[in-house]
């Protein structure tokens, strides 16, 4: 049915991953940074699912793995946001650059 080759999925995943990484490293808004990290995790999910379906040795494990990854990502986002709220209360800023009281 599908003529989309595995490599396309993988490339997409890498691109997403890189976008996420880029966002996580450059965006000033912490919320966006957290979203970018989500993006990276989701890129992995594409990988996993793609492999699970079109891989050298397809198996259901990949999809299960992806589910776990989604759950973990959600938890991570939740924790991240919770911490962000805590820091916002004290620092009154969501700008990552402002979080620099700890340094050499």
């Amino acid at each position: 049915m599908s003529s989309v080759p595995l490599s396309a999925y993988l490339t997409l995943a890498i691109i997403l991953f890189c976008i996420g990484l880029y966002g996580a490293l450059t965006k000033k808004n912490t919320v966006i940074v957290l979203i970018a990290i989500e993006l990276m995790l989701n890129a992995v999910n594409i990988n996993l699912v793609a492999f699970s379906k079109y891989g050298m040795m397809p198996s259901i494990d990949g999809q299960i793995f992806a589910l776990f990854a989604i759950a973990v990502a959600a938890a991570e986002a939740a924790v991240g946001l919770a911490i962000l709220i805590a820091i916002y209360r004290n620092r009154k800023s969501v700008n990552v650059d402002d979080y620099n009281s700890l340094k050499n």
Partner: protein
Amino acid sequence: MMEIAWIIPLFPLFSFLVLLIFGRKWRRGQIDFAVILSLVSFICALLVLFARFTQENVKVEFTWLTIGETQLTAGFEVNQLNALMLVIVSLVSFLVHMYSKAYMEGDERITVFFAYLGLFTFAMLGLVLSPNLLQTYIFWELVGVGSFLLIGFYFYKEEAKAAAKKAFIMTRIGDVGLLIGMILLFWQVGSFEYDEIFAVISAGDLSETMATLTAILIFIGAVGKSGQFPLHSWLPDAMEGPTPVSALIHAATMVAAGVYLVAALYPLFAFSEVAMLTIAIVGGFTAIFAATIGMTQRDIKRALAYSTVSQLGYMMLALGVGGYVAGVFHLTTHAFFKALLFLAAGSVIHAVHTQDIEKMGGLWKKMKWTAPLFLIGTMAISGVPLLSGFFSKEEILVSAWVSGHYLLFTLAIIAAFFTAFYMFRLFFLVFGGEEKKEQSAVKESSNWMTVPMLVLALLAIVAGYIQTPWFGTFLGDWLTTGIAANVHGHLDGPLWVMVVATVVTFLGILLAWLMYSKKVLSRDWFTSRAPYTYQLVINKYYIDEVYQYIFVKGSRFVSQILHFVEVYLIEGLISLVTITMRRLSIIGSKFQNGQTQLYGTVAFVGLAILIVVFALTGGGF
């Protein structure tokens, strides 16, 4: 008796130890104790000498140090030469002990003084008894220490400190030569033993070059100790020590050790013509060189010191030209008359409390004993006929003539002239002429001082008769039996040599008389004519200054350079390392600026580098 000759040095050693350890507590009698010990030592030495007349050499040794399979030994040996030396040393030592009892009276450190005397005597006797080079070297150095300690006896005087240091270091320079020569010889011969060395030489197993090299190196040691040019300048300075010390160490015994060493190793030296010539030239040059300086000195002891240097040069010259007996003979006679002169000078100094001869004068009447005794010494050293110096000097001149070194012979003749001149200059200035005001209270010294002088004066007169062309050559015959070298008991020289020597001596005396007693000749007759020469001579040819400039300044300069290396180069390298570390640390800390995204970026760069390298290298596949 000869088997227990080792006991001779132990008496002074015992004296040294006892005085050093208990001397502070011991209020009275410690000096007598030391004097008696030195007397015992002398008696033993005398017995050994008599025993040696009838018996063979004795040598006793034990293992001192094991090097792998080689065993170095220590022990003692008695032969003609050192039996003679034993007597000379212990006698002079005993007399000086006696003399010092009076001379040093009242000094609060007199016990220490006698302790040091004991140490020195021990070392000197040990040196004489040594059967091998190594042991000789050991005592050689110990003798130096004794000398060093006694020169620096008045430790609070800056001059004494400087003189002691100078004496030690200059002789040490010579000692290093000796050490090197000795070690080289060891690797050639395989032993430090005198007799083994001689055996190898007579077997012809030692190459000529090696013999020359080692002989000259060993001679450097002798040069240092015997104050030969160019290592002579410590000896006059050593006069900072108490006068009895000058008599014992710097006239009669230690300084003669160099001559003794050459004599003891005579077969080695005789094997190498070059070495012999070197010795002769150095000796001859020193003889005349020191004599010229001696003519200008104002300090009575310094003048005598230069005379000593000159006489030692004479002895070296004798040995160098093959006059083995002549050298040893002169060593013997010189020990007596020079010790006498120093003791007499000490007596004078003791009485007038100055050493400046210009401040003395007219003492002939005041010092009824000292003055004639000094005169005897002066006549003996000048070579006035029938006194001991006349015979020994004559022997040297004959040896020089016979050996064919005419230039050296001439030098020796001129030196004899100078000797007579400056010795009588001293005599006339000190004892003749007008009485100086400040010396009205001068008194003759006590018997403790005059008796030793008397003994020495007696010896200075008669000692010459053991080897004369007229009454037999007893000393020479005895000394030369069994020596492993081609030496002669006596050389017959032309009669005119004796005549010339006598004439020259009297000319010198005459000149001194004219200048300093009669004052017919003006004293600056020579100085005004050749002021530069005079300046040169009175400043001792600027040798000290040259040394100061080259060696002292030189080593200080090197030291400064190395200090620079130490501070800037080595410390600098260390700081370079620490600074680098600190820099790196700062750079590392700079990244830690609190920005999370920078941290992430660094990590990303790290990952990227890993992957890029992997991709480029194919991942090490």
